[in-house]
Protein backbone atom coordinates (compact mmCIF):
# COMPACT_ATOMS: atom_id res chain seq x y z
CA UNK A 1 0.00 0.00 0.00
CA UNK A 2 1.24 3.46 -0.87
CA UNK A 3 1.94 5.64 2.13
CA UNK A 4 3.53 8.58 0.38
CA UNK A 5 3.32 9.69 -3.20
CA UNK A 6 5.21 12.59 -4.71
CA UNK A 7 4.25 13.66 -8.22
CA UNK A 8 6.24 15.95 -10.50
CA UNK A 9 7.53 17.96 -7.58
CA UNK A 10 9.43 21.12 -8.48
CA UNK A 11 10.96 23.83 -6.32
CA UNK A 12 12.91 26.78 -7.60
CA UNK A 13 14.71 29.38 -5.52
CA UNK A 14 15.16 32.37 -7.78
CA UNK A 15 16.92 30.74 -10.72
CA UNK A 16 18.04 27.62 -8.86
CA UNK A 17 16.11 24.44 -9.61
CA UNK A 18 16.59 22.79 -6.24
CA UNK A 19 14.11 20.05 -7.05
CA UNK A 20 12.71 19.55 -10.53
CA UNK A 21 9.98 17.22 -11.69
CA UNK A 22 10.63 14.52 -9.12
CA UNK A 23 8.11 11.69 -8.74
CA UNK A 24 8.30 8.62 -6.54
CA UNK A 25 6.29 6.76 -3.99
CA UNK A 26 6.96 4.92 -0.75
CA UNK A 27 5.03 1.94 0.57
CA UNK A 28 4.17 1.17 4.16
CA UNK A 29 7.00 -0.48 6.08
CA UNK A 30 9.75 0.37 3.57
CA UNK A 31 13.11 1.88 4.30
CA UNK A 32 13.94 4.17 1.40
CA UNK A 33 17.05 6.27 0.96
CA UNK A 34 17.35 9.49 -1.01
CA UNK A 35 20.92 9.93 -2.13
CA UNK A 36 22.78 12.37 -4.34
CA UNK A 37 25.77 14.70 -4.31
CA UNK A 38 25.88 17.90 -2.25
CA UNK A 39 23.28 20.38 -3.39
CA UNK A 40 21.26 17.71 -5.20
CA UNK A 41 18.06 18.84 -3.50
CA UNK A 42 17.63 16.16 -0.84
CA UNK A 43 16.99 18.49 2.09
CA UNK A 44 14.76 20.63 -0.08
CA UNK A 45 12.72 17.52 -0.85
CA UNK A 46 12.31 16.86 2.90
CA UNK A 47 11.37 20.49 3.48
CA UNK A 48 8.71 20.25 0.78
CA UNK A 49 7.31 17.06 2.25
CA UNK A 50 7.03 18.68 5.69
CA UNK A 51 5.47 21.93 4.52
CA UNK A 52 8.41 24.20 5.30
CA UNK A 53 7.68 25.91 1.99
CA UNK A 54 5.20 25.15 -0.78
CA UNK A 55 6.46 23.56 -4.01
CA UNK A 56 6.57 25.59 -7.19
CA UNK A 57 4.77 22.72 -8.88
CA UNK A 58 3.63 19.20 -8.17
CA UNK A 59 1.82 17.41 -5.39
CA UNK A 60 2.47 15.37 -2.28
CA UNK A 61 0.00 12.77 -1.05
CA UNK A 62 0.18 11.09 2.33
CA UNK A 63 -2.27 8.26 2.96
CA UNK A 64 -4.12 9.49 -0.13
CA UNK A 65 -4.59 12.96 1.38
CA UNK A 66 -3.19 15.92 -0.50
CA UNK A 67 -0.72 17.54 1.92
CA UNK A 68 0.99 19.72 -0.68
CA UNK A 69 0.30 23.11 0.87
CA UNK A 70 -0.34 22.20 4.51
CA UNK A 71 1.61 24.11 7.15
CA UNK A 72 4.37 22.17 8.92
CA UNK A 73 2.52 21.57 12.17
CA UNK A 74 -0.47 20.09 10.32
CA UNK A 75 1.77 17.74 8.39
CA UNK A 76 3.27 16.61 11.69
CA UNK A 77 -0.14 16.00 13.18
CA UNK A 78 -0.95 13.71 10.27
CA UNK A 79 1.98 11.53 11.28
CA UNK A 80 5.15 12.66 9.51
CA UNK A 81 8.11 13.35 11.79
CA UNK A 82 11.63 14.35 10.87
CA UNK A 83 15.14 15.09 12.05
CA UNK A 84 17.42 17.81 10.70
CA UNK A 85 20.70 17.89 8.89
CA UNK A 86 21.78 20.84 11.01
CA UNK A 87 20.88 19.99 14.60
CA UNK A 88 17.69 21.62 15.79
CA UNK A 89 17.73 20.44 19.39
CA UNK A 90 15.96 22.69 21.90
CA UNK A 91 19.05 23.93 23.72
CA UNK A 92 17.03 25.73 26.35
CA UNK A 93 15.47 22.51 27.63
CA UNK A 94 16.52 19.24 29.22
CA UNK A 95 16.90 16.04 27.22
CA UNK A 96 13.64 14.70 28.65
CA UNK A 97 11.76 17.93 27.95
CA UNK A 98 12.96 17.83 24.35
CA UNK A 99 11.33 14.45 23.91
CA UNK A 100 8.24 15.57 25.82
CA UNK A 101 7.65 18.23 23.18
CA UNK A 102 7.51 15.31 20.77
CA UNK A 103 4.38 14.16 22.62
CA UNK A 104 2.66 17.47 21.86
CA UNK A 105 0.14 16.21 19.35
CA UNK A 106 -0.49 13.04 21.35
CA UNK A 107 -1.65 15.03 24.37
CA UNK A 108 -4.37 17.59 24.87
CA UNK A 109 -3.84 19.93 27.82
CA UNK A 110 -4.85 23.42 26.74
CA UNK A 111 -4.05 26.83 28.22
CA UNK A 112 -6.72 26.52 30.90
CA UNK A 113 -5.47 23.09 31.94
CA UNK A 114 -1.94 24.44 31.93
CA UNK A 115 -2.89 27.28 34.29
CA UNK A 116 -4.96 25.03 36.58
CA UNK A 117 -3.43 21.52 36.39
CA UNK A 118 -6.18 19.43 37.96
CA UNK A 119 -6.00 15.67 38.29
CA UNK A 120 -6.58 14.70 34.59
CA UNK A 121 -3.85 17.09 33.51
CA UNK A 122 -1.42 15.54 35.98
CA UNK A 123 -2.30 12.05 34.79
CA UNK A 124 -1.63 13.10 31.20
CA UNK A 125 1.63 14.72 32.26
CA UNK A 126 2.94 11.54 33.88
CA UNK A 127 1.96 9.58 30.79
CA UNK A 128 3.96 12.02 28.70
CA UNK A 129 6.99 11.51 30.95
CA UNK A 130 6.61 7.75 30.85
CA UNK A 131 6.44 7.41 27.08
CA UNK A 132 9.22 9.98 26.61
CA UNK A 133 11.50 7.98 28.89
CA UNK A 134 10.65 4.94 26.78
CA UNK A 135 11.86 6.71 23.64
CA UNK A 136 15.02 7.82 25.43
CA UNK A 137 15.69 4.21 26.46
CA UNK A 138 15.25 3.10 22.87
CA UNK A 139 17.83 5.62 21.65
CA UNK A 140 20.26 4.86 24.48
CA UNK A 141 19.81 8.17 26.28
CA UNK A 142 17.89 6.96 29.34
CA UNK A 143 20.55 8.11 31.80
CA UNK A 144 20.82 11.57 30.22
CA UNK A 145 17.18 12.49 30.77
CA UNK A 146 17.77 15.33 33.23
CA UNK A 147 20.76 16.84 31.46
CA UNK A 148 20.60 20.04 29.49
CA UNK A 149 20.19 19.08 25.83
CA UNK A 150 23.14 21.14 24.60
CA UNK A 151 25.49 19.49 27.08
CA UNK A 152 25.28 16.21 25.13
CA UNK A 153 28.01 15.32 22.64
CA UNK A 154 27.09 15.72 18.97
CA UNK A 155 26.26 12.07 18.33
CA UNK A 156 23.88 11.92 21.26
CA UNK A 157 22.17 15.13 20.18
CA UNK A 158 21.47 13.42 16.86
CA UNK A 159 19.98 10.47 18.75
CA UNK A 160 17.94 12.91 20.80
CA UNK A 161 16.42 14.30 17.62
CA UNK A 162 15.38 10.80 16.65
CA UNK A 163 13.90 10.14 20.12
CA UNK A 164 11.98 13.41 19.89
CA UNK A 165 10.68 12.63 16.42
CA UNK A 166 9.48 9.11 17.25
CA UNK A 167 7.78 10.39 20.42
CA UNK A 168 5.25 11.76 17.98
CA UNK A 169 4.47 8.16 16.98
CA UNK A 170 4.82 8.95 13.29
CA UNK A 171 3.78 6.69 10.48
CA UNK A 172 6.53 8.14 8.35
CA UNK A 173 9.93 9.21 9.68
CA UNK A 174 12.29 11.39 7.64
CA UNK A 175 15.94 11.27 8.71
CA UNK A 176 18.23 13.89 7.15
CA UNK A 177 21.79 12.53 7.26
CA UNK A 178 21.42 10.67 10.57
CA UNK A 179 24.88 9.09 10.38
CA UNK A 180 26.79 12.27 9.56
CA UNK A 181 29.29 12.98 12.32
CA UNK A 182 28.76 9.65 14.08
CA UNK A 183 31.67 7.33 14.83
CA UNK A 184 31.45 3.72 13.71
CA UNK A 185 29.98 2.32 16.93
CA UNK A 186 27.40 5.08 17.01
CA UNK A 187 26.55 4.26 13.41
CA UNK A 188 26.01 0.62 14.40
CA UNK A 189 23.62 1.74 17.14
CA UNK A 190 21.82 3.93 14.63
CA UNK A 191 21.33 1.02 12.26
CA UNK A 192 19.91 -1.07 15.10
CA UNK A 193 17.53 1.72 16.05
CA UNK A 194 16.36 2.09 12.46
CA UNK A 195 15.63 -1.65 12.30
CA UNK A 196 13.75 -1.49 15.60
CA UNK A 197 11.64 1.38 14.31
CA UNK A 198 10.93 -0.46 11.09
CA UNK A 199 9.83 -3.50 13.12
CA UNK A 200 7.48 -1.22 15.04
CA UNK A 201 5.84 -0.42 11.72
CA UNK A 202 7.37 2.98 11.04
CA UNK A 203 8.14 3.75 7.41
CA UNK A 204 11.49 5.50 7.00
CA UNK A 205 12.98 7.76 4.36
CA UNK A 206 16.55 8.77 4.97
CA UNK A 207 19.06 11.01 3.28
CA UNK A 208 22.54 9.65 3.77
CA UNK A 209 26.03 9.97 2.34
CA UNK A 210 27.45 6.90 4.08
CA UNK A 211 27.02 4.47 1.15
CA UNK A 212 27.95 1.34 3.05
CA UNK A 213 25.21 1.93 5.61
CA UNK A 214 22.69 3.00 2.99
CA UNK A 215 23.22 -0.06 0.80
CA UNK A 216 22.97 -2.32 3.85
CA UNK A 217 19.71 -1.09 5.33
CA UNK A 218 17.54 0.23 2.51
CA UNK A 219 14.94 -1.59 0.47
CA UNK A 220 15.01 1.01 -2.28
CA UNK A 221 16.88 4.15 -3.27
CA UNK A 222 15.99 7.35 -5.07
CA UNK A 223 18.96 9.11 -6.62
CA UNK A 224 18.88 12.86 -7.16
CA UNK A 225 21.29 14.91 -9.20
CA UNK A 226 20.98 18.67 -9.66
CA UNK A 227 17.36 18.44 -8.52
CA UNK A 228 16.42 15.73 -11.04
CA UNK A 229 15.62 12.15 -10.27
CA UNK A 230 18.42 10.20 -11.89
CA UNK A 231 17.39 6.68 -10.93
CA UNK A 232 15.33 4.60 -8.58
CA UNK A 233 15.70 0.98 -7.54
CA UNK A 234 17.07 -1.62 -5.14
CA UNK A 235 20.60 -1.20 -3.78
CA UNK A 236 21.77 -3.80 -6.28
CA UNK A 237 20.19 -1.98 -9.22
CA UNK A 238 21.56 1.37 -8.15
CA UNK A 239 25.07 0.04 -7.61
CA UNK A 240 25.02 -1.30 -11.17
CA UNK A 241 23.33 1.65 -12.81
CA UNK A 242 25.82 3.19 -15.25
CA UNK A 243 24.30 6.66 -15.06
CA UNK A 244 24.50 6.71 -11.30
CA UNK A 245 28.06 5.49 -11.32
CA UNK A 246 29.22 8.21 -13.67
CA UNK A 247 27.16 11.02 -12.21
CA UNK A 248 27.45 10.31 -8.56
CA UNK A 249 29.54 7.40 -7.41
CA UNK A 250 32.09 8.08 -10.09
CA UNK A 251 32.57 11.53 -8.71
CA UNK A 252 33.76 10.05 -5.43
CA UNK A 253 36.22 7.84 -7.31
CA UNK A 254 34.38 4.58 -6.88
Amino acid at each position, binding site marked *: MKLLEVTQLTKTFGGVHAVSDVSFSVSKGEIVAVIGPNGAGKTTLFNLMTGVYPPTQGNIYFNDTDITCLPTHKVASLGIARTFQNLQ*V*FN*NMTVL*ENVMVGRHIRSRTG*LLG*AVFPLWPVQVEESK*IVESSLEKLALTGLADKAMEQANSLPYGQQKMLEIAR*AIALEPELLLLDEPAAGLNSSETRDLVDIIYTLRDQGITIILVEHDMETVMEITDRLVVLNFGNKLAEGTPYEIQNNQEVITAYLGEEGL
Partner: protein
Amino acid sequence: MKDLLKQKRLRHALILLFTLIIFTLPFLITNNYYLSVLVIIGIHTIVVVGLCLLMGYAGQISLGHAAFYGLGAYTSGILTSTYNVSPWLALLAGAVGTGIIAYLIGIPIFRLKEHYLALATLGFGLIIHVILMEEVELTGGPSGLSKGIPYLSIGSLVLNNDFKFYFLVWILALLALILANNVVHSRIGRALRSIHGSEFAAQSLGVDTGRHKLQVFALSAVYASVAGSLYAHYITFISPSPFGLMTSIQFVVMAVVGGLASIWGPIFGVSVITIMAESLKEFMPLLIPQAGGEYEIVVYGIILVVIMIFMPDGLTATLVKAYEGWRYRKERANETP
Protein backbone atom coordinates in the same frame (compact mmCIF):
# COMPACT_ATOMS: atom_id res chain seq x y z
CA MET B 1 12.21 10.36 37.70
CA LYS B 2 13.64 10.86 41.19
CA ASP B 3 15.51 13.95 40.09
CA LEU B 4 12.29 15.27 38.64
CA LEU B 5 10.52 14.90 41.98
CA LYS B 6 13.44 16.44 43.83
CA GLN B 7 13.40 19.44 41.52
CA LYS B 8 9.69 19.85 42.03
CA ARG B 9 10.03 19.69 45.82
CA LEU B 10 12.78 22.27 45.78
CA ARG B 11 10.57 24.57 43.70
CA HIS B 12 7.73 24.17 46.18
CA ALA B 13 10.01 24.75 49.17
CA LEU B 14 11.31 27.98 47.66
CA ILE B 15 7.80 29.25 47.03
CA LEU B 16 6.79 28.42 50.59
CA LEU B 17 9.78 30.22 52.06
CA PHE B 18 9.13 33.26 49.95
CA THR B 19 5.46 33.29 50.98
CA LEU B 20 6.44 33.30 54.64
CA ILE B 21 8.78 36.24 54.16
CA ILE B 22 6.24 38.22 52.17
CA PHE B 23 3.52 37.87 54.77
CA THR B 24 5.67 38.74 57.77
CA LEU B 25 7.02 41.89 56.14
CA PRO B 26 3.98 44.15 56.76
CA PHE B 27 4.17 43.41 60.49
CA LEU B 28 7.78 44.59 60.58
CA ILE B 29 7.31 47.67 58.42
CA THR B 30 5.43 50.40 60.18
CA ASN B 31 6.19 53.22 57.76
CA ASN B 32 3.18 53.67 55.48
CA TYR B 33 5.23 54.96 52.56
CA TYR B 34 7.37 51.82 52.46
CA LEU B 35 4.26 49.69 52.68
CA SER B 36 2.72 51.52 49.72
CA VAL B 37 5.89 50.94 47.68
CA LEU B 38 5.58 47.22 48.44
CA VAL B 39 1.94 47.27 47.34
CA ILE B 40 2.93 48.87 44.05
CA ILE B 41 5.72 46.30 43.66
CA GLY B 42 3.09 43.57 44.12
CA ILE B 43 0.80 45.10 41.49
CA HIS B 44 3.65 45.51 39.01
CA THR B 45 4.83 41.98 39.72
CA ILE B 46 1.52 40.65 38.44
CA VAL B 47 1.97 42.52 35.13
CA VAL B 48 5.60 41.53 34.75
CA VAL B 49 4.99 37.85 35.52
CA GLY B 50 2.60 37.81 32.56
CA LEU B 51 5.03 39.77 30.42
CA CYS B 52 7.80 37.31 31.27
CA LEU B 53 5.65 34.44 30.08
CA LEU B 54 5.33 36.28 26.79
CA MET B 55 8.91 37.50 26.46
CA GLY B 56 10.87 34.77 28.19
CA TYR B 57 8.89 31.73 27.17
CA ALA B 58 7.16 32.67 23.94
CA GLY B 59 10.09 34.88 22.89
CA GLN B 60 7.82 37.75 21.88
CA ILE B 61 8.06 41.37 22.94
CA SER B 62 5.25 43.76 23.81
CA LEU B 63 5.72 47.51 24.12
CA GLY B 64 2.03 47.98 24.75
CA HIS B 65 1.34 46.24 28.02
CA ALA B 66 0.46 49.43 29.85
CA ALA B 67 -2.58 49.53 27.57
CA PHE B 68 -3.88 46.24 28.94
CA TYR B 69 -3.05 47.48 32.44
CA GLY B 70 -5.09 50.60 31.61
CA LEU B 71 -7.97 48.63 30.11
CA GLY B 72 -8.27 46.69 33.38
CA ALA B 73 -8.06 49.83 35.48
CA TYR B 74 -10.59 51.75 33.43
CA THR B 75 -13.03 48.85 33.13
CA SER B 76 -12.99 48.50 36.90
CA GLY B 77 -13.05 52.26 37.45
CA ILE B 78 -15.92 53.00 35.07
CA LEU B 79 -18.06 49.97 35.90
CA THR B 80 -17.82 50.47 39.67
CA SER B 81 -18.02 54.27 39.85
CA THR B 82 -20.47 55.05 37.04
CA TYR B 83 -22.53 51.86 36.87
CA ASN B 84 -22.27 50.62 40.46
CA VAL B 85 -21.14 47.15 39.40
CA SER B 86 -19.59 45.07 42.17
CA PRO B 87 -15.78 45.53 42.14
CA TRP B 88 -15.02 41.83 41.86
CA LEU B 89 -17.40 41.42 38.95
CA ALA B 90 -15.84 44.46 37.29
CA LEU B 91 -12.36 42.99 37.76
CA LEU B 92 -13.51 39.77 36.15
CA ALA B 93 -15.21 41.65 33.29
CA GLY B 94 -12.01 43.62 32.72
CA ALA B 95 -9.90 40.48 32.66
CA VAL B 96 -12.14 38.62 30.23
CA GLY B 97 -12.67 41.65 28.00
CA THR B 98 -8.97 42.51 27.88
CA GLY B 99 -8.10 38.89 27.16
CA ILE B 100 -10.47 38.85 24.20
CA ILE B 101 -9.22 42.19 22.88
CA ALA B 102 -5.62 40.98 23.14
CA TYR B 103 -6.47 37.79 21.30
CA LEU B 104 -8.22 39.67 18.50
CA ILE B 105 -5.56 42.32 17.97
CA GLY B 106 -2.97 39.57 18.32
CA ILE B 107 -4.24 37.84 15.19
CA PRO B 108 -2.93 40.51 12.78
CA ILE B 109 -0.05 41.64 15.02
CA PHE B 110 1.52 38.20 15.39
CA ARG B 111 1.95 37.92 11.67
CA LEU B 112 4.81 40.31 12.27
CA LYS B 113 8.18 39.44 13.72
CA GLU B 114 10.69 41.02 16.09
CA HIS B 115 10.96 44.80 15.84
CA TYR B 116 7.90 45.03 13.59
CA LEU B 117 5.97 43.20 16.28
CA ALA B 118 7.41 45.54 18.90
CA LEU B 119 6.32 48.56 16.84
CA ALA B 120 2.82 47.17 16.34
CA THR B 121 2.33 46.60 20.07
CA LEU B 122 3.70 50.08 20.70
CA GLY B 123 1.19 51.49 18.24
CA PHE B 124 -1.63 49.63 19.94
CA GLY B 125 -0.55 51.07 23.28
CA LEU B 126 -0.57 54.60 21.86
CA ILE B 127 -4.05 54.12 20.39
CA ILE B 128 -5.49 52.97 23.72
CA HIS B 129 -3.80 55.91 25.43
CA VAL B 130 -5.31 58.33 22.95
CA ILE B 131 -8.75 56.78 23.51
CA LEU B 132 -8.37 57.18 27.27
CA MET B 133 -7.46 60.86 26.71
CA GLU B 134 -10.12 61.70 24.14
CA GLU B 135 -13.24 59.74 25.15
CA VAL B 136 -14.00 62.37 27.75
CA GLU B 137 -17.56 61.25 28.43
CA LEU B 138 -16.55 57.73 29.25
CA THR B 139 -13.10 58.17 30.77
CA GLY B 140 -13.11 61.74 32.00
CA GLY B 141 -10.29 62.56 29.58
CA PRO B 142 -6.88 63.80 30.74
CA SER B 143 -8.15 64.80 34.17
CA GLY B 144 -9.34 61.27 34.90
CA LEU B 145 -12.46 59.63 36.31
CA SER B 146 -14.30 62.25 38.34
CA LYS B 147 -16.37 59.96 40.51
CA GLY B 148 -14.54 58.10 43.26
CA ILE B 149 -13.70 54.43 42.72
CA PRO B 150 -14.78 52.33 45.72
CA TYR B 151 -12.37 50.27 47.80
CA LEU B 152 -12.35 46.53 47.31
CA SER B 153 -13.90 44.52 50.08
CA ILE B 154 -13.95 40.87 51.08
CA GLY B 155 -17.23 40.20 52.83
CA SER B 156 -17.54 42.98 55.38
CA LEU B 157 -13.80 43.65 55.41
CA VAL B 158 -13.14 46.86 53.45
CA LEU B 159 -9.58 47.05 52.13
CA ASN B 160 -9.23 50.75 52.78
CA ASN B 161 -5.61 50.99 53.91
CA ASP B 162 -2.17 49.90 52.74
CA PHE B 163 -1.85 47.19 55.35
CA LYS B 164 -5.06 45.39 54.36
CA PHE B 165 -4.54 45.90 50.64
CA TYR B 166 -1.00 44.57 50.92
CA PHE B 167 -2.28 41.10 51.77
CA LEU B 168 -4.74 40.96 48.88
CA VAL B 169 -2.18 42.18 46.36
CA TRP B 170 0.49 39.76 47.45
CA ILE B 171 -1.87 36.80 47.65
CA LEU B 172 -2.80 37.55 44.05
CA ALA B 173 0.81 38.18 43.03
CA LEU B 174 1.83 34.81 44.48
CA LEU B 175 -1.13 33.19 42.79
CA ALA B 176 -0.03 34.82 39.53
CA LEU B 177 3.44 33.37 40.04
CA ILE B 178 2.19 29.90 40.88
CA LEU B 179 -0.15 29.81 37.90
CA ALA B 180 2.60 31.06 35.59
CA ASN B 181 4.85 28.39 37.02
CA ASN B 182 2.17 25.83 36.20
CA VAL B 183 2.06 27.08 32.63
CA VAL B 184 5.83 26.90 32.25
CA HIS B 185 5.89 23.26 33.34
CA SER B 186 2.96 22.18 31.22
CA ARG B 187 2.45 20.96 27.69
CA ILE B 188 1.80 24.56 26.63
CA GLY B 189 4.90 25.83 28.45
CA ARG B 190 7.10 23.27 26.77
CA ALA B 191 5.59 24.11 23.41
CA LEU B 192 6.41 27.78 24.06
CA ARG B 193 9.95 27.11 25.13
CA SER B 194 10.43 24.89 22.11
CA ILE B 195 9.46 27.81 19.88
CA HIS B 196 12.22 29.76 21.58
CA GLY B 197 14.68 26.89 21.09
CA SER B 198 13.90 26.27 17.42
CA GLU B 199 10.67 27.39 15.83
CA PHE B 200 11.49 25.17 12.86
CA ALA B 201 11.75 22.02 14.98
CA ALA B 202 8.77 22.97 17.15
CA GLN B 203 6.55 23.13 14.09
CA SER B 204 7.91 19.85 12.81
CA LEU B 205 6.64 18.26 16.03
CA GLY B 206 3.14 19.59 15.47
CA VAL B 207 3.34 22.70 17.64
CA ASP B 208 1.02 25.33 16.21
CA THR B 209 3.40 28.14 17.06
CA GLY B 210 1.12 30.98 16.00
CA ARG B 211 -1.75 29.79 18.13
CA HIS B 212 0.33 29.31 21.26
CA LYS B 213 1.94 32.72 20.95
CA LEU B 214 -1.48 34.27 20.65
CA GLN B 215 -2.78 32.41 23.69
CA VAL B 216 0.10 33.54 25.84
CA PHE B 217 -0.26 37.09 24.59
CA ALA B 218 -3.90 37.00 25.72
CA LEU B 219 -2.95 35.42 29.05
CA SER B 220 -0.34 38.09 29.70
CA ALA B 221 -2.94 40.74 28.86
CA VAL B 222 -5.30 39.19 31.43
CA TYR B 223 -2.53 39.42 34.03
CA ALA B 224 -2.01 43.10 33.20
CA SER B 225 -5.73 43.76 33.34
CA VAL B 226 -6.14 42.22 36.78
CA ALA B 227 -3.20 44.29 38.01
CA GLY B 228 -4.82 47.40 36.52
CA SER B 229 -8.09 46.69 38.33
CA LEU B 230 -6.20 46.30 41.61
CA TYR B 231 -4.40 49.57 40.95
CA ALA B 232 -7.70 51.37 40.36
CA HIS B 233 -9.17 50.14 43.64
CA TYR B 234 -5.96 50.88 45.53
CA ILE B 235 -5.48 54.47 44.39
CA THR B 236 -9.28 54.97 43.94
CA PHE B 237 -8.59 57.57 41.25
CA ILE B 238 -7.30 57.03 37.73
CA SER B 239 -6.16 59.22 34.86
CA PRO B 240 -4.50 58.20 31.57
CA SER B 241 -0.95 59.19 32.51
CA PRO B 242 0.15 55.96 34.28
CA PHE B 243 -0.99 53.89 31.28
CA GLY B 244 1.20 55.36 28.57
CA LEU B 245 4.32 54.33 26.70
CA MET B 246 6.58 55.16 29.65
CA THR B 247 4.87 52.51 31.77
CA SER B 248 5.04 49.94 28.96
CA ILE B 249 8.77 50.53 28.70
CA GLN B 250 9.09 50.33 32.46
CA PHE B 251 7.43 46.89 32.43
CA VAL B 252 9.78 45.63 29.74
CA VAL B 253 12.80 46.97 31.65
CA MET B 254 11.58 45.24 34.81
CA ALA B 255 11.18 41.97 32.94
CA VAL B 256 14.61 42.22 31.34
CA VAL B 257 16.36 43.24 34.57
CA GLY B 258 14.79 40.34 36.44
CA GLY B 259 15.71 37.93 33.70
CA LEU B 260 13.11 36.51 31.42
CA ALA B 261 13.29 32.80 31.85
CA SER B 262 12.80 32.44 35.60
CA ILE B 263 9.66 32.88 37.64
CA TRP B 264 11.66 34.69 40.32
CA GLY B 265 12.91 37.23 37.85
CA PRO B 266 9.78 39.40 37.90
CA ILE B 267 9.74 40.01 41.66
CA PHE B 268 13.39 40.89 41.58
CA GLY B 269 13.24 43.09 38.49
CA VAL B 270 10.15 44.92 39.66
CA SER B 271 11.63 45.55 43.11
CA VAL B 272 14.91 46.89 41.78
CA ILE B 273 13.28 49.20 39.24
CA THR B 274 10.47 50.42 41.49
CA ILE B 275 12.80 51.20 44.36
CA MET B 276 15.19 52.88 41.97
CA ALA B 277 12.40 54.94 40.41
CA GLU B 278 11.20 56.03 43.84
CA SER B 279 14.67 57.06 44.98
CA LEU B 280 15.28 58.88 41.71
CA LYS B 281 12.13 60.89 42.31
CA GLU B 282 13.57 61.97 45.62
CA PHE B 283 17.20 62.55 44.71
CA MET B 284 17.09 63.70 41.11
CA PRO B 285 15.83 67.22 41.94
CA LEU B 286 18.70 67.54 44.40
CA LEU B 287 21.29 66.52 41.81
CA ILE B 288 19.88 68.31 38.78
CA PRO B 289 17.30 70.85 39.93
CA GLN B 290 15.93 71.60 36.48
CA ALA B 291 15.43 67.93 35.45
CA GLY B 292 11.92 67.05 34.36
CA GLY B 293 10.27 63.64 33.93
CA GLU B 294 12.37 62.86 30.88
CA TYR B 295 15.40 61.74 32.85
CA GLU B 296 13.50 58.56 33.70
CA ILE B 297 13.52 57.38 30.10
CA VAL B 298 17.24 58.09 29.86
CA VAL B 299 17.90 56.03 32.98
CA TYR B 300 15.80 53.13 31.66
CA GLY B 301 17.65 53.27 28.37
CA ILE B 302 21.00 53.11 30.13
CA ILE B 303 19.87 50.21 32.35
CA LEU B 304 18.61 48.25 29.36
CA VAL B 305 21.85 48.67 27.46
CA VAL B 306 24.01 47.77 30.45
CA ILE B 307 21.94 44.67 31.28
CA MET B 308 21.86 43.51 27.67
CA ILE B 309 25.62 43.82 27.33
CA PHE B 310 26.83 42.56 30.70
CA MET B 311 24.06 40.24 31.90
CA PRO B 312 22.02 39.02 28.93
CA ASP B 313 20.25 36.49 31.17
CA GLY B 314 19.14 39.20 33.58
CA LEU B 315 20.20 40.11 37.08
CA THR B 316 18.65 37.08 38.78
CA ALA B 317 20.44 34.51 36.66
CA THR B 318 23.71 36.40 37.00
CA LEU B 319 23.45 36.48 40.78
CA VAL B 320 22.52 32.79 40.92
CA LYS B 321 25.51 31.94 38.74
CA ALA B 322 27.80 34.06 40.88
CA TYR B 323 26.51 32.31 44.01
CA GLU B 324 27.00 28.87 42.47
CA GLY B 325 30.50 29.81 41.41
CA TRP B 326 31.27 30.99 44.90
CA ARG B 327 29.90 27.82 46.47
CA TYR B 328 31.85 25.68 44.01
CA ARG B 329 35.09 27.48 44.84
CA LYS B 330 34.35 27.12 48.53
CA GLU B 331 33.76 23.38 48.19
CA ARG B 332 36.97 23.03 46.24
CA ALA B 333 38.82 24.96 48.91
CA ASN B 334 37.44 22.63 51.60
CA GLU B 335 38.46 19.55 49.63
CA THR B 336 42.13 20.43 49.26
CA PRO B 337 43.85 19.82 52.58
